[in-house]
């Protein structure tokens, strides 16, 4: 029996604190060395303000703050961070771009820089520097970074992935040792799962995240598209009809009630053992590890099945950071952007996000978070597999509006629930898309 005294406890505490200090100090040392050699020298007396989306995981924000601390100590540039939920970053950034005052940097949803491309600082040099150093950018990140132009107007930081979550034993019982990789098989799977009383479900209510990701996957998997590459509305096509029919059949094999589901519904139902497959970020798994170990052990993640088009058609959300042209300290902004994505910073940061977030630079495939638990591995590839919002069309405001207004989601919901026939559902969506893309 160890005899704990106040003194010994104090000592232990100091030792622990010291261990923390060492790594922090090492980071600062490295940061100082980095600042000496980095191509961007912050202006004298520079100060930065940043508005970022509000974290999903506290640990991620802690790691981010630590990173900023090191930046400030190394460069002498203080960074003031404020946080808003990701939907609210956009209106604030729009107002800032309009009035020419506000935070220097914004970190929000993919559509953000494309709302006011001419107000975003040209960061091509930063993007090229990072791309060269870290194995290149994934395709979708390049499109999100440049839009339709030739210059990079933002630096893609991370994706939040949404993939299939499914229970292992129930799937095995239904005759599937692995999650189906093709859409046809997936229908068989859903049918068998429902027949044995272990159904799954995708949200068909106004669920911004879960609803939009699966219906876009379904539309694209069958070759349907909202617009073509010139932003011409092409939703009214036989492919869209096929996608609708597929979704309706699938809907028949889902648990009843998905038409009212929001983003939280499938998490609840999965953790309560009501559903056995759904689409989600890694949050169900993380929650299960904490509170429902049996589910965590009996579940896994899989890519969305591949449809008749023969390639992945997933949609994941990307979060870029951009600097405004009105900033008085463009060099400091660029230095911070590059600093965030350097391996010494980015590796611990992406690790702290526990798989919720995925990198856009190929070299970070090697981060141990993706292999320490094989169930994390599918999320490693979401950036590579993701198509961009708007599909073939531009990635800007129009695509974001169509998603925010649930145009395609409502089209699917209208048809699946039997409110409209295919023609009616498509014509409502077509009319709305024409207005958005005019």
């Amino acid at each position: 029996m160890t005899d704990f005294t106040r003194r010994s406890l104090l000592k232990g505490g100091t030792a622990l604190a010291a261990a923390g200090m060492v790594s922090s100090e090492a980071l600062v040392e490295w940061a100082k060395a980095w600042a000496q050699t980095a191509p961007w020298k912050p202006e004298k007396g520079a100060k930065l303000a940043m508005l970022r989306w509000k974290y999903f995981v506290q640990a991620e924000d802690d790691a981010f703050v630590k990173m900023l601390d090191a930046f400030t100590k190394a460069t002498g540039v203080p960074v003031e961070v404020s946080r808003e939920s990701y939907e609210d970053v956009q209106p604030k950034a729009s107002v800032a771009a309009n009035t020419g005052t506000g935070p220097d940097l914004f970190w929000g949803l993919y559509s953000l820089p494309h709302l006011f491309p001419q107000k975003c600082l040209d960061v091509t040099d930063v993007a090229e520097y990072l791309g060269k150093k870290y194995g290149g950018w994934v395709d979708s990140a390049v499109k999100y970074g440049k839009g339709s132009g030739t210059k990079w107007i933002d630096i893609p930081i991370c994706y939040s992935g949404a993939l299939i979550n499914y229970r292992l034993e129930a799937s095995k019982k239904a005759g599937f040792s692995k999650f189906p990789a093709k859409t046809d098989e997936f229908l068989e799977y859903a049918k068998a799962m429902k027949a044995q009383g272990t159904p799954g479900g995708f949200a068909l209510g106004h669920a911004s995240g879960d609803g939009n990701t699966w219906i876009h996957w379904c539309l694209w998997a069958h070759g349907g598209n909202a617009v073509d590459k010139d932003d011409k509305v092409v939703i009214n096509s036989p492919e869209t009809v096929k996608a609708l029919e597929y979704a309706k059949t699938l809907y028949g094999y889902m648990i009843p009630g998905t038409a009212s589901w929001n983003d939280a519904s499938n998490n609840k139902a999965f953790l309560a053992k009501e559903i056995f497959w759904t689409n989600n970020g890694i949050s169900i798994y993380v929650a299960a590890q904490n509170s429902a170990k049996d589910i965590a052990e009996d579940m896994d993640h899989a890519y969305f099945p591949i449809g008749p088009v023969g390639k992945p058609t997933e949609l994941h959300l990307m979060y870029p950071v951009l600097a405004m042209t009105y900033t008085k300290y463009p060099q400091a902004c660029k230095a911070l952007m590059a600093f965030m994505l350097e391996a010494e910073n980015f590796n611990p940061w992406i690790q702290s996000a526990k798989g919720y977030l995925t990198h856009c630079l190929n070299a970070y495939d090697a981060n141990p978070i993706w292999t320490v638990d094989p169930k994390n591995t599918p999320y490693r590839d979401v950036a590579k597999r993701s198509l961009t919002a708007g599909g073939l069309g531009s990635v800007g405001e129009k695509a974001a509006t169509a998603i925010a207004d649930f145009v395609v989601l409502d089209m699917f919901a209208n048809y699946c629930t039997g409110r409209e026939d295919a023609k009616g559902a498509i014509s409502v969506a077509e009319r709305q898309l024409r207005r958005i893309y005019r």
Partner: protein
Amino acid sequence: MALAFDQAAARVTPRDVTAWDRLKTNRHWLGAWFMLPAAVFLVLFLAYPLGLGIWLSFTDARLGREGIFVGLENYDFLRDDPVFWLSVFNTLLYTSVASALKFAIGLYLALLLNEHLPFKAIIRAVVLIPFIVPTVLSAIAFWWLFDPQFSIISWSLKKIGLISNNIDFLGNVWNARWSVIFANIWRGVPFVAITLLAGLQTVSPSLYEAATIDGASPWQRFRYITYPLLTPIIAVVMTFSVLFTFTDFQLIWVMTRGGPVNATHLMATFSYQRAIMSGYLGEGAAISTAMIPFLLATIMVSWFGLQRRKWQQGSDND
């Protein structure tokens, strides 16, 4: 010394009374001065936003960006938008059904609470609870009650053996409409009940005594004494109740976000979705502006329809 000099000077040249002096001291103008702060307040926080909203509905403004004048273009688009008309239908259904039931239940409760009951004060306080709970909280509670998988209602009925599958409260079009209407009634009844109760207590007991002596039945007492004396307060309560119901937002937004397939979108939630979520401020403003005629009509009905009696306007009832 200087003071004395000044006084002397003032005596020598008596100043003319200027218009400004009159304005400063005139009693009628004084009233206007006193009202000025309130007027500024109203213009700044009521008239200006209303005017701005109407102006926005004639522009193609986007979130964070000035728009240009486009005339009736937004209204033109909405005229052929089935989702807009669906939201109008939903709003009218929601308002009429919920208001009628809130009135009926509220009046019934008020009459009950006006009787001599044991623990009267406590019961009256309890009735107010749904009204006190923040709307968002009660909406979340209802969201759980109506959950497709975890509803306690479905669970209980299943245990009793009345149903074999969960009821799809919010996923089926008509179920969802009745569910949100139910939640709204639950929330709105106390306001109607307590206000009508206050009205009932102003009715003089001597009227009832006289009627009883004349042999009036309970129904006759209600019909010829309570109801006529209660009309002014009914007019006020129902105007407010209809206005609140018509512009309801929180309950719907928390419970269904307008789903399933827009079956519970009210004009208020639809306007928010178009204006803020999708960023089409102009179109959202047009949807909001389209609510104004309905609201004006409500006010007109209650003020002109229910306040016809002369004594209610301050003269004798002959």
